[in-house]
């Protein structure tokens, strides 16, 4: 069985196509691994193996885990929240349908921060997820279950969502690849919403090739999501060997004098830049003058949108209801107070405050203008650079409980990932090395719809880094 564990998703698919490996055997292998998971990475695991008909397609039957917040028809989907207790959606998210049709059958759903609000996966109604590199540490968040599952080899690949870093940061903490596509590249239909102008589905995979393969079946316009876009061209498996002629920009504002950037992270990042140079890239400092304000804008815009999106949880149509002996309003308040966890309440409060009469212009209005400046900064930078590179997060995976008492410290974990989210541009995190035995991710961001070029560069670098993640894969399951 250890042979299956060593296969990337693309390699497992190839083995199925050539007949060396049965699709049912592959599904059962991962179903069992997920069932035996010790990291609390899963919220649901399939009870049976699907028939062979379900696994016909370009993804060759390689089973897929998806973050809890993707609606899955008839399968409990709670977005990590108690307020959606027992909710079985009457439909599946478009991406889940697309991938099932492409031959990646759903085999498990993964734990996450409640409504994708968090950077440590400690805000889940299902309890925290543990990092397979060190179970006393967080896996990152909010797609922490997906990242831990892939890193631990209990899922061949997984879907996550990224609003301010929720794919890239856990990928970095768990030593795997995570890609957030261009906003609009992938349908949001059937994703339980957090902040609609930022939310984007993406992939968490063992390597860059797997990321390209999975993403290639996800992009495109969906009539059910009016903000989705026709993807220009199609994505193919990367073959990049070097970085000759590639201009990498290192944003001064995100790397110089940043409070809280760990020396070990900085060292891995600097090594990665030297490697890139040795492969033909040029590395120069660039400017993103408004990037230091991205986190502030984000923590106004995202909570504001969340406070509106989460108003639908009122105990009427689905999920939890807590009734008193009072009227409708009391039922709303009791349901919401019992159903939402502390971080979700905090963000609803922040968002409601930012949108409330008298504060709208000072907070939400200003934040939207900062967003414009941040997008302009990137546009200017991309006139001179192919990609912007940063560490994915200022730190390695931190200890469970280390930041739960200080929301601001938790939010700073997304300092390098939030600017790209506000600009709606694609970015990947790939493991670049270790600091104190824990993975450090390199973030590569490019202009809108530059996914193929990002994947080519990431693939070339991945070959040079030769990051070994096999240790974590052996520790995550019984």
């Amino acid at each position: 069985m250890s042979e299956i564990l060593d296969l990337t998703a693309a390699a497992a698919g190839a083995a199925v196509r050539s007949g060396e490996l049965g699709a049912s055997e592959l599904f059962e292998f991962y179903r069992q691994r997920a069932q035996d998971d010790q990291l609390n990475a899963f919220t649901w695991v399939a009870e049976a193996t699907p028939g062979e008909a379900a696994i016909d397609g370009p993804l060759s039957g390689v089973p897929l885990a998806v973050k809890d917040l993707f609606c899955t028809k008839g399968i409990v989907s709670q977005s990590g929240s108690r307020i959606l207790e027992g909710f079985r959606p009457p439909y599946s998210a478009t991406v889940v349908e697309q991938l099932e049709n492409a031959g990646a059958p759903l085999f498990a759903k993964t734990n996450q921060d409640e409504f994708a609000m968090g950077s440590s996966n400690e805000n889940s109604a299902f309890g925290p997820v543990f990092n397979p590199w060190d179970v006393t540490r967080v896996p990152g968040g909010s797609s922490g279950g997906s990242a831990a599952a892939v890193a631990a080899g209990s899922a061949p690949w997984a879907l996550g969502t990224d609003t301010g870093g929720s794919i890239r940061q856990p990928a970095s903490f768990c030593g795997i690849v995570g890609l957030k596509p261009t906003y609009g590249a992938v349908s949001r239909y059937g994703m339980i919403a957090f902040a609609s102008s930022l939310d984007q589905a993406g992939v968490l995979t063992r390597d860059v090739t797997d990321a390209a393969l999975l993403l290639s079946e996800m992009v495109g316009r969906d009539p059910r999501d009016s903000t989705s876009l026709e993807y220009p061209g199609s994505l193919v498996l990367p073959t990049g060997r070097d970085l000759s002629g590639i201009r990498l920009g290192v944003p001064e504002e995100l790397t110089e004098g940043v409070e809280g950037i760990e020396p070990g992270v900085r060292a891995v990042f600097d090594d990665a830049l030297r490697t890139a140079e040795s492969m033909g890239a040029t590395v120069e400092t660039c400017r993103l003058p408004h990037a230091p304000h991205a986190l502030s804008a984000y923590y106004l815009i995202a909570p504001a949108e969340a406070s509106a999106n989460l108003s639908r949880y009122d105990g009427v149509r689905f999920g939890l209801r807590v009734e008193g002996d009072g009227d409708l309003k009391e039922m709303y308040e009791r349901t919401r107070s019992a159903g939402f966890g502390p971080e979700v309440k905090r963000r609803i409060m922040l968002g409601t405050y930012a949108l409330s009469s008298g504060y709208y212009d000072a907070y939400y209005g200003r934040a939207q203008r900062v967003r414009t400046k941040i997008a302009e900064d990137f546009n200017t930078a991309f006139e001179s650079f192919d990609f912007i590179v940063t560490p994915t997060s200022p730190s390695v995976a931190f200890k469970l409980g280390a930041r739960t008492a200080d929301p601001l410290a938790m939010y700073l974990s997304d300092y390098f990932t939030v600017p790209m989210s506000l600009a709606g541009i694609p970015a990947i995190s790939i493991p670049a090395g270790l600091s104190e035995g824990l993975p450090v991710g390199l973030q590569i961001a490019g202009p809108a719809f530059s996914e193929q070029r990002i994947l080519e560069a990431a693939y070339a670098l991945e070959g040079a880094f030769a990051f070994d993640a096999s240790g974590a894969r052996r520790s995550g399951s019984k």
Partner: protein
Amino acid sequence: MIDRDAVLHVAALARLELNSEEVERMAAELSAVLGHIEKISELDLEGVEPTSRVVELENVLRPDIPQPSLPVEVALAQAPAVSGGGFSVPGSGA
């Protein structure tokens, strides 16, 4: 910066019932977060257009063709309480 009364006002708007301990904690935490966020007030944003979403799309329409929607029993299946083919809720009070 955010006092107890402000927390209670916003909680009422958000339909959240907070106990007194939550109110105290929320006041402190929101003040700390807003204190950090305040930095954006230093920026000169005169004449800058707001961005509500990065994708420039206008009036995305679909053909006006009737399509089946969820059957009533499916739409009601997840509701905590139903009656007479609809969602059932407590009275709205006086």
